[in-house]
Each structure stands twice: as structure tokens, then as C-alpha cells.
């Protein structure tokens, strides 16, 4: 087990490095000069532009820039943001924590609800509850997440005044309960991200449970006279959960990207806003840092779900 995890971790390193390398080259191949973006909308002398370019090492050829970047990376230096004028790690870490505060609870909540709904729905496949769940999956899947965000803001925050429109904390207050304040701000964006996560997971959970419940050993268990509850919890659920766990890990990457959009709509100070802004200003070092971080997170979440699956399903071997 331990050697499996270690082996997986080691094989993850080249995957992450490859992602970083490809994204490094790609971002630099995208037309547009970061210095022009940095200088802004004002006529400036050409010497000024050249001077800035040299200051950031952008006058070097791409392969030299790549080598320097990787050298620094191995020394633990993630680069220096052109736009923020701060080390990349300083810029990214707080934002990443905020994004995780939005995404991780949503992913957990969404997973729990998905499994609950699916297990209720499959009691009678094609029944009212099952049809309802399938329709919900189809409906949520076909609407854009940022639009839902806007509608929620207009209805629940502006019209009804129940929730705040923007932000993660009430910046005016100083004395109120931090946790309650956070939950109050989390409610709208969190419920949307949870719902989108729930839908993706419920789709797999439902199909998987239906498939398992049609297998021979379930028929045997039922024929043995076990009650429904026992059949479900002892036989269907553990077997059906293997693909569900995998999909939870796999959709974590999706949840991260959908949260980028929700962050923009709700003014959530996470990595999404930083990402959009860095693309616009061609802030390569920050983009690089975000790619590195998200790649690592996705690889780790996949690894975690693989470990859990293998614990649950003895058929999965750790590999030799």
C-alpha cells in the first residue's frame, strides 16, 4: 500500500512537469506582449518599453526562459509576478486557500447528496423520483453556471436581500462571528458549485447502482431472503461506490474550473479572478504558478480517489 502511494507520487512528478512545460511554451506562443499590457493605455517612449522588457528577462529566447524557469523551480523559486510585483507564491497561496474553501466543501456536500439521491432513485428505476433526478441532471448540465450565478444574485441577494451580492466576508464589519459570516457569504456560490458537482456525480452513481443491482450476487442475496436495506448497504452500495469515488476525484478538476467562473460572478477572492486577470495582462509567472498548482491538485485528488477505491475494492491491485 505504502509503496503503491510512493510509486504513484513519483510517477506524478513527470506528469506535472510535462504539464508545466507545455503550458509554459503555450502561454508564450499566445500573441500579445506582457510589457504592452503592463504599460497600459498611455503613450510611452519605446526606450521605456525596452527597459521594462530587459528587467523581466523577456528579451531572452523562449528556450533560455524555459531553462531559467525550471532551474528556479527546482530551487523552490516559483518566479516573480510582473503585475503584482510580488513572488508568485505570495500571490497565489492565499487565493488558492480561498478557492479550496469554496470548492472542497462543495465537492463533499455534492458527493453526499448525489449518493443519497441516487440510492433513493434506484429503488424504483424509471419511477417518479428517478425521472425527477434524471431531468434535474439534464437541466443543470445544460445551463451555464455563470448564468445561474447571476440569477441567484438578482433573486436572492438584490430582490430578496437574503444574502450578500459579492465577496467572502463582510468587509465592513469587524466584530461579527467570522464563521457565520463566512457561511452567509458561502451560501449562494457554494450551493451552485455543490449542485453542479452533485449532478456530475449523481449521474455516475445512479447508473452504477442500477448496474450493480442487476448483478447475479444481488439476485442471490435477495433470494437468500435478506431485507432490502441489508442488500443495499452490504452489497449494492460498496460495489457501486468504486466508480463513484473515481468520478469524485476526476470531477475535482472540473469543479475547480467551474468555480473560476462562479468566483468571477460572486467576487470570491479566489484563484479564478487572479487567473482571468493574469491572462489579460500576460502575467506569465502567475499563470505558470496556477497551472502548476491546479495540475498538482488534480493529480493528488485522482491519487486519493484511486487509493480509496483500491481499499474498497479488493479487485484493484496496487500494481507491481
Amino acid at each position, binding site marked *: 500500500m505504502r509503496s503503491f502511494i510512493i510509486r504513484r507520487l513519483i510517477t506524478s512528478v513527470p506528469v506535472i512537469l510535462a504539464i508545466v512545460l507545455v503550458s509554459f511554451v503555450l502561454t508564450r506562443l499566445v*500573441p*500579445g*506582449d*506582457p*510589457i*504592452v*499590457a*503592463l*504599460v*497600459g*493605455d*498611455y*503613450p*510611452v*517612449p*519605446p526606450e*521605456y*518599453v525596452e527597459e521594462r522588457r530587459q*528587467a523581466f528577462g523577456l528579451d531572452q529566447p523562449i528556450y533560455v526562459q524555459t531553462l531559467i524557469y525550471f532551474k528556479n523551480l527546482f530551487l523552490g523559486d516559483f518566479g516573480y509576478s510582473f*503585475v*503584482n*510585483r*510580488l513572488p508568485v507564491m505570495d*500571490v497565489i497561496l*492565499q*487565493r488558492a486557500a*480561498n478557492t479550496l474553501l469554496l470548492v472542497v466543501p462543495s465537492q463533499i456536500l455534492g458527493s453526499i447528496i448525489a449518493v443519497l439521491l441516487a440510492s433513493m432513485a434506484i429503488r424504483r428505476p424509471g419511477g417518479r423520483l428517478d425521472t425527477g433526478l434524471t431531468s434535474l441532471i439534464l437541466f443543470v448540465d445544460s445551463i451555464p453556471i455563470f448564468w445561474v450565478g*447571476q440569477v441567484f*444574485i*438578482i433573486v436572492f*441577494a*438584490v430582490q430578496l*436581500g437574503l444574502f*450578500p*451580492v*459579492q*465577496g*467572502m*466576508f463582510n*468587509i*465592513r464589519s469587524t466584530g461579527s462571528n467570522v464563521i457565520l459570516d463566512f457561511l452567509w457569504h458561502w451560501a449562494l456560490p457554494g450551493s451552485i458549485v455543490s449542485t453542479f458537482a452533485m449532478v456530475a456525480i449523481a449521474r455516475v452513481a445512479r447508473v452504477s447502482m442500477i448496474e450493480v443491482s442487476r448483478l447475479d450476487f444481488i439476485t442471490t442475496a435477495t433470494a437468500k431472503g435478506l431485507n432490502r436495506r441489508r442488500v443495499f448497504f452490504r452489497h449494492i452500495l460498496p460495489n457501486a461506490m468504486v466508480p463513484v469515488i473515481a468520478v469524485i476525484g476526476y470531477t475535482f478538476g472540473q469543479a475547480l474550473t467551474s468555480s473560476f467562473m462562479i468566483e*468571477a*460572478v*460572486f*467576487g470570491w*477572492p*479566489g484563484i479564478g*479572478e*487572479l487567473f*482571468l*486577470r493574469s491572462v*489579460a495582462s*500576460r502575467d506569465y509567472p502567475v499563470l505558470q504558478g496556477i497551472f502548476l498548482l491546479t495540475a498538482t491538485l488534480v493529480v493528488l485528488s485522482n491519487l486519493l480517489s484511486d487509493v480509496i477505491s483500491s481499499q474498497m475494492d479488493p479487485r484493484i491491485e496496487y500494481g507491481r
Partner: protein
Amino acid sequence: MIHRSILQGKLEILKELFNVSSSAGAEDITSNAPAAGAHNRSLLRDSKARFGGGLIVGLGFSALAFAGSASAQDAQPKRGGTAVFVLQEDPTYLTRDLTTNSETGTIGCILYQGLMGINAEGEAYPLLAKSVDISDDKLTYKFVLNDARWQDGKPITAKDVKYTYEEISGKHSPTFKRTLTSIDKIEAVSDKEIVITLKKPYGPILIALTCQQGAAILPEHVYVGTDPLTNKASNAEPVSSGPFILKEWVRGSHLRLVKNPDYWEQGKPYLDEIIAQVVPSGAGRTQALLSGQVDRIPWFALETSDYPLIERNPQLLLQPARKPPATDFISINTEKKPFDDKRVRQALMFATDREFLLKSAFNGQGAASTSPFAGGFPWAIDPEMDLSKMYPYDPARANALLDEAGVTRDASGKRLSMNFIIEPGEEGGSQIAAALKNMWEQVGIDLTIETIQPPLSTERIAKGEANIAYHGYSSGGDPAIGWSGQFVSTTIGSLRGNAARYSNPEIDELFTLGQSETDLDARGVYYKKAQKILGEDMPILTIHDPVDKEAQGAWLKGMENEYMFPTWRDAWVDK
């Protein structure tokens, strides 16, 4: 709104009085002693201080103006409280001296002040300087500093001014770099006195010494021996002297500024705290104002399409932003054939229905431009110049001019094919492109629209790769600062410079003369002449003079005297 118009009425009277007094001929502009009362500062900013006109703004008028501003503010300002305004994104730096980024200007011009400030009329008044003495030859400017301190307790001295101009702004501010070229020397005569000597008279010099123009004074003792671009004071822990100081900056969320207890203007500011909340989505900013979560949206962060939504709400005010005039125009690459022929460029103007564009692309907000310069500088605008009369929408005349210039139609009726660069973020860009494609088809011109994002668009336009392009430019507060860059030949090829690549020695000469005078009326003569030539030559087709608006809750008071980037010194909350 009522109060504002009363204020303006009073101002007119004041201006009359001041203009009478200007016959005295003295060139001394003195600000009031800060201890003289809470309204003195607003008096000075209300009063129209036309430096070139040579008038006095002295203590003698304080009583009169006090009455003016007292009746303008219906109640005594309330002390305490918090105001929240929005930003689209975090500022890059905390001082305007390093970048022209709007968010930086908004925060930086609260934290740091220039020798001069800028009033609601867009004119300079002494701010960190107590007074300005201008020599008769308009070459020597002597400033006496107010008794102000940095937040670490050290006094602000003439050495700070000299160091800032020479080592920080002069090297890093895209705007102040240009100012410095007109300055011969900067001398710290004593702790509180600084003398600036110009190479030759420079009209916009006092405007150029404001924070807006990248000339906020920074502390020498914090910056000396460091790189201002990486100094912590520039991007995280400022040591400032303005009415509010930075207490906390949570990136991507907000910046919290608290009242500076040692602020040099006595009794100010009124608010305890101002918070800049970062709200990246345009709809989100408007909704935050509608729900009362924030108190103000500055002009650069408010979407035109949301104006009606705010106008309908009786609790909110939507008003034209006081800022340097800007213009939206189409540049024609005058180096490429057949656009090197001015008849072709005139034909394009005749083929453009600007009234229709105003209605369709800008929802009727703003105005169709009447001059190659946008409005806003009455002294520089020729009132007889009216592009709408000179170039009414007339496809027949456009066709005739094109025939005359020898740009003939081929068998399919097409005269020309060319590309048209627009930027997706530029307001009205896509509507204008679609409408123009239609309008110009009638005169045989086939447009290929290229939507390109900045910074790539900026680069390509500067390199002359666009036949025509649509842009928005700001005047930067003076024709010599903003408009000159569009037309003089020295800015061909620079970013956001002369996009038309237009080169005319006569225009170069007129712009040089226009900036070397200080008297506004004398300067106006050159600019008016330049407009006549440009109106004939048509290197750019001015389409639209935008009127950017800002929105705020009606409960937020004391913002009437602000310009471009509010200092919040007079702001208070009536709730």
C-alpha cells in the same frame, strides 16, 4: 442634484468676481491656511483658478466662498462611518508614479498627494504645496510646502519632492517622464521651499504636478537606495501622507484605508474608514450598489448598459464623471495607399453616419464629436468647428470624392478591401464595426473586421498593421498631454501614439507652440488653428465624445469637488 446646481450657480458668480480681480495682474496663487476652517479647502477647489489668466486666489475671498460652499452642503458633515467603493481588480502598485493603471490611481491618489491637486473643473490648485510663485517669464516656479508629515512621523521636505521627481516619477511614470523633459532643474532651496526651473514655458506644468499625472510626492527616506518597483512601500506597505492610510490589503478582496490621525488639513477627513472592494464582474458591481453593499462605483468600473438600472433607483445618483475628456475615434493609416490622399479620408467621413452610431452603439449616451479634439477644453476648441456640418452623412459625396481620387470600382462594384481592427473590450466597438461595414459597402468599401485583444491590438496598431482601427483615447487633462500624441509625428510607432501615422510639420509646430505658452487663451489660438487643419486632413475620424458616468448612493456626500480620482477628504455619510 439640486444642491449641485445651486453650488454651480454660486460658482458662476464666484468666477465672475475672480475674473474681475484678475486685472490686478499678480501671479501669486496662495492656498488658505489649513487652520482657517473646514471649508477653506473646498473653497479653493470650487473657485476657478485659471493660472494662465493671472488671477488671485487669496484669503480675502474665503468669507465669500465659505458662504458659497456652506449653502451647497445642506448639512454639517457628519464625522465617522465607513464608505465602500468598488474596483475591477487589485491595483498593481500603490503609487500613481509607477503606472497609469486606473486602480492604482484610485488608491494611490488617496494615499499620496502631489504639490498640486486638481479641482472639479479639471484645473490645478496648490495641495501639498501651500503656495506657488510664478516668475514673469513663466520659467521659474517656487513652491512652499505645507507642514505635512509622513505616517512614520517624519516631515515632508523639499528633498522628498526633488527625489521623487528625479529618481522615481521621472524614471518610472509614463506621464511624468514627459513632464521631466520640459524641466531644466529642481532645487530644494530650504526644507520647505522647492524651485522648479523650466527649459521653456510649458503650459500644462501645474496640471503635470498632480498625483493624476504621476507626480505624487513619495518619501525619500523610504525609497533612497532601493528600486521603487520592488520596494515594499510601492506594492504592500506604503509610507504615505494622505487623508487615509492603508491598513490592510487582502488581494482579490479589498483594501482597507483608515483615517490618517496626523493628516495636515485640520478637521479632515470626516470618514473613519474607506474600503475598496474588488468586484471583477460588471454586473456584480452594479448589483452590489443596488443592494447597498457598496456606496460608490467609479466611472471606469461602471458599465454604460447599467446606467438606466441605476437611474431608476431613487436612492442612487448617476452623474457625469469629472475627468479629462476622452474621445472614441477611427484612425486611418495615412501611410498606406490610397489613404495617403486626404480626399479618400474625407470620403470615409462622409460615408459615416455618426448620429446613427451614437444611437446604436452608445445608446445615445455622449455626443457625436464636432471637432478632431473631444470637447472639455473650451479655451482650446474652435466653436465654429463643427464636423457634423462639414461632413454630414452623404454617401453620394463620398462616392464623388473617391471617384475624384481615382479609387474606382471594379466589375463587382468594389473599390477597396481593407482590415478594421477593433478591441473586444472597447465600448461600442463591435456595433460600430457592424454598422460601418454596412455603411461603407454603399461607397464600395469592403471591410474585414478583426477583433483583437489588447495588448496584441495595441502592438499591431503601433506597428502600422491596421488600415483602420477603432480606439478610445483620453486627453490626459490637457491637449498637450493627450491629444498631441495622436497627431504629432514623433509618436508614430509608439504604443497608443499616433495610430494614423500622420505626419505634418505644420501640426508638429502648432502643438509645440501650444505647449510653450502658459496663458490659456494664447494657447487656444494654436490649438484652434490645428483643429482647422486636422478637420481638413482627417487623419482620424472622431466618432463619439463619451460622457462616462459614476454612480453612488445619495447618502454619500462631499464628493462634488473631486476630479478623476477622488481624494475622499470631504466625503461623509449621511445615514
